[in-house]
Structure formats: C-alpha cells, structure tokens
C-alpha cells in the first residue's frame, strides 16, 4: 500500500535567519528532502549600473563600495584597475604595494565572515563567528586608521590611493601578522576535525569539476572543485607576479572543501602581506590625474581575484566625464547558477549549509 504523499512548497527567505541577506529560495520539499529549488533575487536591486552612468569616474568609486559591502577594498581596486586600463594611467610603485596590502587584508576579513557564518549555519552556536569577528575587528581598525571608515572605504582612486598610510600603520600590521597565524590555528583546533562538522559537511552539496567550469563559477567555490584557477596567478594584475604564494584547491568540491580552501587562502594572504610589507618602497601614492578624467573613446575589461571570485568591470567610455556603460561581472550571482544542482536530493538542514558554503553577498548579486 503506497502512501500518497505530495511535495509542499516552502519559501525560505527573504527574511530567513540564515539567508545572508534578502534572498529567497522557492523550495519544493518532499518531507525533509529537497525536490526542487528556484532562487529569487532582486530584493536589494538599487540599479548601481544605471546610477554610475550619471556620475564622474571618481564619483563612481563610492558606488563600488556598495557592491560587495563585505569586500569594498577589492571592489575599489577592480574598478580603479579597469579605469586605468581604459585611460592608460600609470600607478606609482608605493601605491601598487599599498593596494596589494589592502586587498589581501580585505580577503582575510571577507573569508573570516564567510567561514564564520558557514560554521554558524552548521549549528555551532555563535562561537566560531564571534571569534572570527574579533579578528575581523582588528583588520577593520587598520582600515579605519588608513581611510577613516570601517565598511565603505572609498580609499582607492584612479591612479593610486587617496592618502598615504600613517606611520603607526606598519607596526600595527606587523603585530597583526605575527598574531594571526596563531588565531587561525585556534579556529582549526576548534572545528577542523570536529566529527559532527565532518559528518554534516563532508560529501554534502558537491559541485563537480565540469559543472563548475560549465557554470563559470569562480573563487573559492571554483577552486574547491579541484580547478587550479586564480586570477592572481593566471592573469596577474598590478604587481601580484612579484609575490610567491600557492593556490589551495579542494578535491571533491563539497562544503568541507570550500571551508578548508578559504582557511588556507587566509594563510596564503598572510604570506603575501609579509612579503609586500618588506618590499614597500618610498614615494608618492598617486600619479597626477585630473579630477575629472576624460578617458579616450573605447572599452576596457579589468578583472581581479576578489574574495568571492572573479570580479570584473566592463567600462565603455565616450570621452565624456561619466562612463557610457558600467557593467559589473558579479562572481556571487554567477556562483549561484549551480545552486539548484548542488541542493536537489539533500535535506532541509543541508540546504542551509550548502547555501552558506557558497558565501554570497546580496549587494553584489542584485547590484
């Protein structure tokens, strides 16, 4: 006697405790098992690409802060690189090094939030994320010392950075670089071999390698599936070819690999920071660029390895002070393409973990 059951539709989000922002999943559940899942975006759409067409090239920089608001230093860097490529503006050496230091610090801060909220979704009651936010506060202190803000930095300018780093910045950074490896070991001791976390995340939400390439995933999600592809190594922008660091990759592409890849990437960032701090030259931090830049007619596509993936800016200029077209290649929106394939067949408890392991930021998805 077959009991007739029919799946019921549950809307997880947009105001759900663990959807990392306003994101809705129309999930069809058969009991606890997920049968189908359709993501719904648009709750945080501000039309940044339309706004940018009315602002000067410098006025667009505060807009880029609000794309992926957890990594706005990387957004600034990507935008400035694209404009410099478009207008052919040189960048002094010291500014390049300061940009690398800021971008790598931002990568650590963004990964801390990503790993912390992933472990929080697994159920570890607020402890890992509170430890990681404590470390992130130290990075935010450094950012505040340099540019005055803790979230939307608006620090980088076309042709360099807005202000030089104050003299108490380097000793503080040095102290941070000495302490941080100890904190990362502590996170590993806390949960790396925790049997329950292994049971919950190993083999869950697998993103196979070909599917990852086919859905053009990028960033830790892509490398966790075993693809050794990092823009800093594949297409080195600014001065990344002067540092040696290696690219951590996962094997299977499940939630546990994504968690491990992010932890190891933090350690690699610390290596880059140490080398960048030693080679930091003297000199001014900004080439003389007119306040209203008028790039020649043309287009340019600049991309960097942002913490969440390959962040690209496609700018078209018609020799006026405002960009004719300002398109953002949002890594988090494209990483969500394979979300349905990763989730079907798993249970409700896994849906939250798989979604948490992709680490999205709604500001960048909806733009």
């Amino acid at each position, binding site marked *: 006697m077959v009991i007739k059951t029919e799946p019921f539709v549950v809307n997880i989000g947009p105001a759900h405790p663990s959807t990392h922002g306003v994101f809705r999943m129309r999930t069809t559940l058969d009991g606890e098992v997920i049968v189908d899942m359709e993501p719904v*975006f*648009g709750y945080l*759409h501000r*039309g940044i*690409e*339309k706004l940018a067409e009315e602002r000067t090239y410098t006025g667009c920089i505060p807009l880029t802060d609000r794309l992926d608001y957890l990594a706005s230093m990387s957004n600034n860097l990507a935008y400035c690189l694209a404009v410099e490529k478009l207008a052919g503006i040189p960048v002094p050496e010291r500014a390049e090094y300061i940009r690398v230091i800021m971008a790598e610090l931002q990568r650590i801060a963004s990964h801390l939030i990503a790993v912390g909220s992933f472990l929080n979704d697994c159920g570890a009651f607020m402890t890992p994320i509170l430890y990681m936010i404590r470390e992130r506060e130290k990075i935010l202190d450094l950012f505040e010392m340099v540019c005055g803000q803790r979230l939307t930095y608006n620090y980088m300018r076309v042709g360099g950075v807005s202000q030089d780093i104050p003299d108490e910045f380097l000793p503080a950074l040095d102290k941070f670089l000495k302490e941080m490896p100890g904190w990362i070991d502590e996170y590993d001791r806390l949960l790396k071999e925790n049997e329950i976390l292994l049971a919950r995340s190993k083999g869950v939400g697998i993103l196979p390698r070909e*599917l990852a*390439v*086919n*859905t*053009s*995933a990028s960033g830790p999600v892509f490398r966790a599936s075993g*693809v050794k*592809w990092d823009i800093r190594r*594949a*297409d*080195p922008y600014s001065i990344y070819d002067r540092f040696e660091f290696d690219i951590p990759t996962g094997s299977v592409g499940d939630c546990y690999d994504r968690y491990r890849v992010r932890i190891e990437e933090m350690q690699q960032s610390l290596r880059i920071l140490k080398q960048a701090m030693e080679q930091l030259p003297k000199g001014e931090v900004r080439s003389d660029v007119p306040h209203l830049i008028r790039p020649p007619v043309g*287009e340019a*596509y600049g*991309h960097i390895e942002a913490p969440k993936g*390959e962040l*690209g800016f*496609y700018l*078209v200029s018609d020799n006026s002070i405002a960009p*004719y*077209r300002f*398109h953002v*290649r949002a890594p988090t*929106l*494209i990483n*969500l*393409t*394979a979300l349905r394939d990763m989730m079907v067949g798993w249970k409700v408890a896994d849906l939250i973990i798989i979604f948490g392991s992709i680490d999205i930021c709604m500001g960048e998805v*909806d*733009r």
Partner: protein
Amino acid sequence: MTVALSGEEIAARLEEKFPGSVVESGADSLLVKSGSWLEIASYLKTTAGLDFDYLTAITAVDYYDYFEVVYQLTSIKHNHSLVVKTRCYGRDNPTLPSVVSLWRGADFQEREIYDLMGISFDGHPNLKRIVLWEGFEGHPLRKDYRRW
C-alpha cells in the same frame, strides 16, 4: 599570463570555416553576425586548439541604433581569452540566440540582460525577469528609459 588572442587571427580561421560571418575584427575583439553566432560559439568551444570552455562574462551595451552584446571567453586549459561581440538591431524586440546550451554560466547573465536591457534570448530555458518584479514595464538600462 592570460594571452588575449588577437581578433584577426581568429577571424581568419572563422572566415574559412563559416564564410561571411565575421563582420569586422579589431586587435583584441571580434564582431560576428548574430545569425551564425551559435555555430561559431560551439566551434570556439569544441575545437582542440581553442577550447573556450569558460564563459567569463556577458555584457550588453545600448548604442542607440543597435545593441552590442560582448562575450568574454576564456580557456582554462590553454589560459587564453577572447572577446567576441554581436550586434542586434531594432529597439522593440531585439533577439539573439542563447548560449545556455553551451555554457550554463550564461543562464543568469542572459536573464539579467533580458530584464534590464530588453534583449530576448531564444533557446533560453527560463527567460524571466531576474532582478525586477514581473509587472515592471520597460527596461531601465536602456539609454532612452525615462523614469517618469
């Protein structure tokens, strides 16, 4: 270092494979006819030497008398990239063949271009507005979009 393949070199190969499909080829980009774009795309993806298996980004730009859609392709194996452009004319219902069948990464990006720019992609499995709500009329990213 990702080698950006030059437009002419690829244009030459495409010319003898698909005669008359390459409109113009600049130093770093390649303009192809929208009609034969799908075959060119599958050719680029499948031939041994090119292997463009990773679609980095799709962008649509509104140049008033035509829409230009720019595809940034990359090959993970050979670490080289190519920029291919197609144009579609007409402002009421410009259409282009969808490449979701080749690269599933284009799914959300094409839906976003449909939603904000108004270019519809035939062959797309689920062409709906991605960011704006269903009842929204007009496509905001078009140059002639008047808010009120």
